[in-house]
């Protein structure tokens, strides 16, 4: 392995307590980075050996738990898959945009959790089948009609990228809408009518101006913009009573 090289990081620091209160600040660290370091490795190096007061979230470090989303050089990204060697230096790491900051790189996710719940992301049926009668049949084509939208890891990069979120913080946003749409599209579900009021309501799909930024940054290729804008089409046809709502 080649010698690690020293890379400069500018990391956002904020604490609601003590001397660091206020608007937050950028703090510079010099981190020895082997060639295969990702930004998260560098943050952990800072935490372990340079400055244990740095707070950030992370867990699986394989791009599936969704914890480590941050702004890396101004773009929302999973730090566990942002390679240091691919980035311009100094590397600026900040908390996800469009969320209130709790501390350093940690943002407040409570409103996101409420938005997720608001789309009723569970199978809704008029009559449940008893487990002893086996599974609901679902062909591979029926599975494909929603599978992509079930890939969301709730990392919230799309909220940080969405220009609508800047002015409309109550917009339920790309991930939550994609999840609601995922259940609407599932052949086992009959809850479309129950989700209509939220998805097509005041804070729903019609806030979206189709900047497509959510899909540009999505690390799992969920393409939430497609879900949001398909739901516009579907809900418009439903509003016009051209299309029925499943479960109505």
């Amino acid at each position, binding site marked *: 392995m080649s010698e690690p090289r020293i890379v400069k990081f500018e990391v956002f620091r*904020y604490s*609601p307590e003590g001397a660091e209160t206020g*608007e*937050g600040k950028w703090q510079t660290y010099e981190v020895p980075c082997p060639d295969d370091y990702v930004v998260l490795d560098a943050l952990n190096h800072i935490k372990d050996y340079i400055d244990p007061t740095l707070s950030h979230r992370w867990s699986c470090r394989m791009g599936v738990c969704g914890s480590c989303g941050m702004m890396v050089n*101004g*773009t929302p990204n999973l730090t566990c898959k942002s390679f240091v060697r691919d980035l311009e230096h100094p590397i600026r790491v900040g908390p996800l*945009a*469009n*969320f*209130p*900051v*709790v501390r350093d790189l940690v*943002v*407040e996710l*409570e*409103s996101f959790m*409420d*938005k997720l719940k*608001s789309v009723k992301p569970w199978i809704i049926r008029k009559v449940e089948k008893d487990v002893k009668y086996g599974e609901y049949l679902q062909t591979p084509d029926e599975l494909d*009609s929603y599978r992509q939208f079930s890939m969301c890891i709730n990392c919230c990069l799309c909220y940080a*990228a969405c*220009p609508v979120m*800047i002015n409309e*913080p*109550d917009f339920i946003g790309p991930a939550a809408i994609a999840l609601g749409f995922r259940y609407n*599209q599932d052949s086992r579900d009959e809850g479309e009518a129950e989700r209509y009021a939220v998805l097509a309501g005041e*804070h729903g799909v019609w806030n979206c*101006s*189709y*900047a*497509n*930024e959510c899909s*540009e*940054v999505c690390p799992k290729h969920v*393409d939430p*913009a*497609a879900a949001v*804008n*398909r739901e*516009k*089409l*579907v809900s418009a*046809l439903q509003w016009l009573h051209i*299309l*029925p709502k499943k479960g109505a």
Partner: protein
Amino acid sequence: MGSASSTPTLASRVPDGWWMSHKRYRYYMLFAMASGILSLGSLVLLVAVSALSKGSQAWAGFLAMLGSPAGLLLSVVVLVPTCFFAVRWLRVGVKIPQVKLGPMPAPGAGMLYVAHFGLLIGVSLLVILLLSGVVA
């Protein structure tokens, strides 16, 4: 919606001029602004309709204005963002109809691309042919 913060938070701050500050947004903003210029084109259309309603003399005057250097410049100024807008809109817009509507199966992306751009090019050609008098 949204829970009360249990500790004070730093509001998510948006710097002035955020909408042109990053290349992620610039493209989209150009797209949005293109629609402003597009409205100029609609204005020209309105003037055309108005001239048509006022008789052949007014219509001839309108055509002369379109043919003048200023008129030609205006056409070019409108054409460029119109093409940009159309191409970008069709590129992202093609994702929208890929959904199963009632008994109709979801159309594939390839077919929609061909249909969208085919329609754009076809209609444009038809208009050019009509205006140039090849097709009477």
